[in-house]
């Protein structure tokens, strides 16, 4: 995994609550056998019309979307299925962080494994971000701090090991493999 330390971008705001993984990437795009190229299917049912043409009014199709890497989303982003295709699609499109008041468990875990930083903020900060689309924000993984315009800073929770992995580009599989003696010992003791 690539190292991630700070992400600075103007924000894109999708304020809907409970944006589920079927919206992030509909099931019919899950028949791939690779990770690459899923960015074109990101939010497909909202982004394209029945003929497959981009809907000009959908956020990701607007000129502002170009180059932005931070998504501000409504509460409970990423609920629903365990498909890792959801963070793959977001990352492939260019996103590096998602900010919300709540992010669903499995999505959050999947995001972290792909260098997409889940940033949980309080209601007030969230309300401000929703009200200020395009605000320039910085996600500082080292300090677990989100910086907002006007030198405002809010801290966000990040599990310590996940933070370590992001900062050092550590992949968890390597870590687990390095603990193989303990795993073998557990099995000798008699796994259930």
């Amino acid at each position, binding site marked *: 995994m690539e190292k991630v330390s700070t992400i600075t971008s103007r924000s894109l705001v999708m304020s809907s609550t*409970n944006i589920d993984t079927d919206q992030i990437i509909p099931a*019919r795009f*899950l028949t791939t056998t690779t990770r690459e190229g899923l960015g074109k299917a990101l939010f497909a049912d909202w982004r394209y019309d029945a003929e497959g043409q981009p809907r000009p009014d959908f956020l990701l199709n607007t000129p502002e979307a170009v180059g932005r890497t931070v998504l501000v989303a409504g*509460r409970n982003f990423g609920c629903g299925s365990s*498909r890792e295709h959801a963070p793959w699609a977001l990352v492939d499109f260019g996103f590096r962080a998602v900010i919300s008041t709540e992010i669903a468990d499995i999505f959050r875990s999947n995001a972290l494994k792909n260098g997409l930083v889940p940033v949980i903020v309080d209601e007030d900060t969230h309300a401000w971000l929703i009200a200020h689309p395009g605000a320039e924000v910085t996600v500082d993984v080292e300090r677990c701090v989100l910086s907002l315009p006007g030198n405002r800073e809010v801290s966000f929770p990040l599990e310590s090991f996940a933070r370590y992995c992001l900062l050092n580009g550590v992949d968890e599989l390597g870590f687990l493999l390095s603990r193989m003696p303990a795993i073998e010992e557990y099995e000798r003791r008699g796994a259930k």
Partner: protein
Amino acid sequence: MPARTLFEKVWASHEVVAETADTPAILYIDLHLTHEVTSPQAFTVLRERGLPVRRTDRTLATLDHSTPTDRAQLFGEVPIRLESARHQVEALERNAAAFGVELLGLKSDRRGIVHIIGPELGVTQPGKTIVCGDSHTSTHGAFGALAFGIGTTEVGHVMATQCLLQRKPKTLAVEVDGRLAPGVGAKDLILAIIGRLGVSGGTGHVIEYRGSAIEALSMEERMTVCNMSIEAGARAGMVAPDQTTFDYLQGRPRAPQGDAWEAALENWRALPSEPGASFDRVMQMDASEVLPMITWGTNPGMVVPVTGTIPASGDAVFQKSLQYMGFEPGQSMAGKPVDVVFVGSCTNARLSDLREVARVLRGRRVDKSVRMLVVPGSQQVKREAEAEGLHQVFLDAGAEWRESGCSMCLGMNGDTVASGRYSVSTSNRNFEGRQGTGARTMLASPLTAAASAVTGRITDPRELLA
């Protein structure tokens, strides 16, 4: 030692290394179930790193999600029509063969939806840790297992090491007392619970369903309840194992036999939460107040009794949901027209569910405006249903009877609901586009689905169950 919960016991006995402030626990996984959609990229990682599937004896694969449900395609008489689905099926066949993983393949008489076959074979057992690259893995918690969905990267971790890095979740007790009324089932109960908890109410928690109403449920019903734990955002759902659990498992092909059975029973009897064990949160419900339920919106928390009305007002998301569904605030759900009825999925496609549907359909016909699809959860369910003649009831009523698979639960195998059409579905997700682009899904019990198929309108099943 302080009194412990079921979850705490299962968790503790699977810690290879306990969590610390700096590192998550290394949790041992007893059983890894896998399917064609969330495994290909994990196999690729193993290949890139030159790693084997470490414990093929703890890994079981099947084909369900993108698998066609019509006979000719399934049994190879004609090619699988959806090319992408065909590639995915072939990829799992190749990967399973290359890595030595047992695959219940297209022609296997044990094949079925991953969450139906685990219990059916008896590999799902109390006290086990069970994972699968699928969020409805929570189903297996009905047996007192700790079972949860994982992403594809983690699928690779389990394949390579039989372990996962996990932070210990919190616990939530959902205590349900009282008795479900006639015509009201486990699906109605879990929809009512999600309605109360909300779709993120369980985030970060493992739910233990307990209380006299839960104890009174059959294993099939407990599976329906645990299945939808994820729809409340919970990591997993569990029910303490008891005699109902043991009776279900005894004699299953892969359950312990003989002395091993006796030894297993002794372990399993020690699993239930001890008196006085504390949960991080507790929610109480009275089962006798639950009515047949149906969803009106685009997540499972947007739910009312079949006899109820859509809320009169709400926020922007509420407006967007109603617009998608083509409904107005304050409307009654009963009487709304229905185009498609889907009976199937890991929530409600077991034999008991099909019997419920047959109870309503026997001697009746599906309304001519409705297309009804009945899709058994596994090939075994299919055989058992046919042995009882249930399929004849469905066919006589004008419904379609298919081979097992996920089918219309998610639009990726060729079975879909057309844009703008209304579907009453016994599955678990009513997200926008879940059953096909633009499809409008209303989640309900098998009884409500069957009753609505007969009348062509959303119908309280109690009206037809005189």
